């Protein structure tokens, strides 16, 4: 492991730069030298969707109320973020003491946690998905807690839960019981593999169970012959993909309710199945000829050139499998090293797109390409390839991502100046639009911060009622 490995005891102090460390480009700088006609469309789009105008625009899901009763898992919180960004009132229902996810922080380091004005600490993973949400505490294991849930459920459009399969049903607050009280309720269960079927979830299962059980981990990483192993994604990819599909299904149920159905329904979505939906051709390919999708590292089984390969100061992505781009890539390369362009372009084996896909051809292609890139930095490669309008870009680390001018200019990374947590740098809402853009209004709440407001407003509790519930450990 060598001397370079940093141990817990020997960690460097890091100077925190203000963000942005390099100023965001201005409109004039971005469009300098572009003729009027050419920039006209860009300026129209920009004026139509710029986030600085968000506050003046309506929200598409304003007036929808959601109870997010999930805990200790990312998928439910990720799902409800879709709704909270588009204006729904999302209330996180946490067990008294708070969702255990609040305490999760990389390597257990408290200094990485965010501190609210009240002094309460919260980990970044939880906080990132608490956007625009309220927080109440309610112990659904207690009879009084369930009674309170039943009392307010008539005023709720969507309920999300991730308890062990059938647990809420056994407690009398499952879909079968709550839909009796509120037939309009859309009831969503989320998990790793399902609440029914032979592989139904074990209690406590969370990502990367989803990733491992659907083929993602087996397929990610380099092949054995290249020194690789099956690899999980560095973030909770399956939960986040599954959460988006859960949101899609739930949104569809809500749309159906208003359009023609007149009632809610039972919805289920899991992390594993979300990724099964999007893992390319794995199932079709296996069905055709029993093929098992192999790992192929940072290359692609189905497109050549379409890969990340090493260069002088890191790694760089270059993509362009089809003839037009294929020849442009070699032209860029040939400007510095004509023999490489010649080597590729004169090879009759490489003339037809599909002929370039077998493994030995991919090895030849990338060996030749790296022969050009090995002496160039990411920036130099990128510049040379972009002159030929080829898609390329360096593998960026998080500091480079945060300082990337395009992201800063478009507001993909923004500072939320939060009432509780102060200024927090964050990845912005993915919903960019003209009439109903998504937005982040606040970053999150402390545990049970909205108990009084929500329980007074929805359940009509008075101060005595609140006090007795608190005393009984229900909220």
């Amino acid at each position, binding site marked *: 492991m060598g001397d370079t490995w940093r141990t817990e005891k020997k960690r460097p102090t890091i100077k925190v730069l203000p963000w942005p460390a390099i100023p965001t480009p201005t409109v004039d700088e971005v469009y300098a030298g572009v003729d009027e006609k050419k920039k006209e469309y860009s300026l129209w789009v920009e004026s139509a969707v710029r986030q600085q105008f968000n506050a003046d625009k309506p929200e598409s899901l304003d007036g929808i109320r959601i109870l997010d009763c999930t805990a200790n898992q990312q998928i439910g919180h990720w799902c409800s973020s879709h709704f909270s960004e588009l204006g729904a009132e999302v209330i996180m229902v946490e067990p008294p003491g708070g969702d255990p996810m609040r305490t999760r922080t990389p390597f257990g380091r408290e200094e990485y946690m965010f501190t609210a004005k009240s002094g309460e600490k919260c980990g970044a993973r939880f*906080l990132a998905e608490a956007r625009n949400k309220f927080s109440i505490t309610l112990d659904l294991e207690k009879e009084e807690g369930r009674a309170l849930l039943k009392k307010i459920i008539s005023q709720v459009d969507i309920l999300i839960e991730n308890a062990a399969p059938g647990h809420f049903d056994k407690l009398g607050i499952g879909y079968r019981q709550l839909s009796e009280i509120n037939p309009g309720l859309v009831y969503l269960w989320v998990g790793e593999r399902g*609440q029914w079927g032979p592989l139904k979830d074990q209690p406590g299962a969370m990502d990367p169970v989803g990733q491992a059980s659907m083929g993602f981990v087996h397929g990610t990483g380099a092949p054995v012959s290249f020194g690789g192993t099956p690899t999980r994604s560095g973030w909770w990819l399956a939960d986040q993909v599954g959460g988006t599909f859960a949101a899609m299904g739930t*949104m569809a149920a809500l749309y159906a309710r208003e359009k023609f159905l007149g009632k809610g329904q*039972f919805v*289920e979505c899991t992390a594993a199945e979300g990724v099964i939906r999007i893992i390319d051709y*794995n199932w079709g390919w296996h069905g055709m000829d029993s093929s098992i999708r192999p790992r192929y590292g940072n290359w692609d089984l189905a497109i050549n050139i379409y890969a990340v390969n090493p260069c002088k100061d890191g790694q760089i*992505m270059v993509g362009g499998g089809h003839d037009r781009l294929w020849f442009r890539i070699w032209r860029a390369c040939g400007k510095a090293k004509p023999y490489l362009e010649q080597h590729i372009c004169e090879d009759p084996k490489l003339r037809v797109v599909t002929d370039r896909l077998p493994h030995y051809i991919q090895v030849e292609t990338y060996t030749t390409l790296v022969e050009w890139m090995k002496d160039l930095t990411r920036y130099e490669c990128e510049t040379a390839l972009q002159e030929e309008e080829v898609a390329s870009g360096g593998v960026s680390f998080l500091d480079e991502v945060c300082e990337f001018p395009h992201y800063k*200019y478009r507001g993909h990374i923004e500072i939320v100046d939060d009432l509780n947590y102060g200024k927090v740098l964050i990845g912005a809402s993915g919903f960019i639009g003209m009439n109903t853009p998504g937005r982040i209004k606040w970053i999150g709440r402390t545990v049970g911060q909205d108990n009084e407001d929500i329980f007074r407003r929805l359940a009509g509790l008075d101060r005595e009622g609140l006090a007795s519930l608190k005393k009984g450990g229900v909220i």
Partner: protein
Amino acid sequence: MTLSKALKDMTFEDFCRSVFNTKERFSKPEVLKGVRVVSTTQYILGPSCAAYLAELGAETIKVELPKRGEPMRHTTPFNEPFLYPLSRWMPDKGTGLGFFGANPNEYFLSLDFHKPEAIQIMKRLAAKTDVFCENYRAGTFDRWGIGARQHLKVNPRTIYQWMGGFGGWGPGRNRASYDILGQAQGGCFSITGWPKEYGGLPGKQTIWIMDYWGGAISAFNCIASLFWRDNVSGKGNFLEYSQVHGAQRHLTDFIALYGKTGVVAQRWGNWEPLLCVHGILKCGKSSYPNSKNPQEQEVGYCFVSAYKDEDFKKLCKLVGKDELAKKYPTHSDRVAADAQMAIYPEIEKFGADKTKEQVWKAFTDAGLVAQPVWNSKEVSEQEHFHLRGTIQWIDDPTFGDVQTQGPAYQLSETPARIRWVFKPVGADNEYILSKLCGYSGSHIAELEAKEII
């Protein structure tokens, strides 16, 4: 509405099997029946957005170039598997499996936008369209007179969803992009894979995630916009999704961490920075040592989760390392980087002489959450996913028996469904042009002769 007594009295498992029964999908209504989607998209990002809407029952018309169709039809792993025919004009060519998964249930119209008649057809379609998905270079359709501004003027109820690399504005607006660029430039590579000290490099997520996932949030936003249009405002929308933006949404907690502490998150391999033990272990033996397929000859891997104190104790007992439980009694003791580096190799020794199935069984028998790392064959063979319709064999009208992914989510009353995996290029030219544009048979034949369709 009340549930029948029979449904109320069954066990929860039976209740779920009954209301989510995949065999009953076609006897239930479709959410987006009567919603028309036009999709002028290529590759994965744009097509997948339209496909998700098609799964929900929208009449989705995919417009692609005549003859060869869109590029993804010529994309297939190692140039091996194809589904024939590519079109009725090219029966000896096939469509590659890259096209799979992003185009089910759609109608296929071929159209060459470089001809003025084709632009006329687009305008006719747009006037009757609810959702318009497009992923040409930003501004191209606007220049051709069939962009958002023109469509919204003719049909103010249209939801125009543009999807692409860097978006139509900002410093990178002219840059080309692919999924893998979104992953690279957005930071996804930088945190996936083993650290340098363990011999790893930044790694790609094996799927075209920024495309397929970007299509998914775009489809979500389209349905939300339909909801807003039909219930609130009566107005359409212009939506923009930029591929390179997806990464920032996924990595938002790492961004927050950088902003607060200056720490640039790095790779941590198959372990988990937030929890310990919660990682993937190498097992020493292959489950199929006699297989001829190298994918099966590989040794196995198994995920195990035992981050709670009592679970960690059970794990240590099982693997015969009680001293670890004493040395690292609390979660904060275990989750520190040094501790993780010490703990995992010790636990891994337990699996050195076992297959992943043996390790899986030992862990689950001890009451721990565990999951072997399955390859695509093992997943294909799970009854679980077939029962739930997320992987299914269908009798495709064009290609016969095909195994395909189904909708990711289950809906009890209005389930999404797969009707066909895709169709050949221009398969529905006659149907679409006569139904929506009022063209006669000879007119359509003339368009075909002029290579407009």
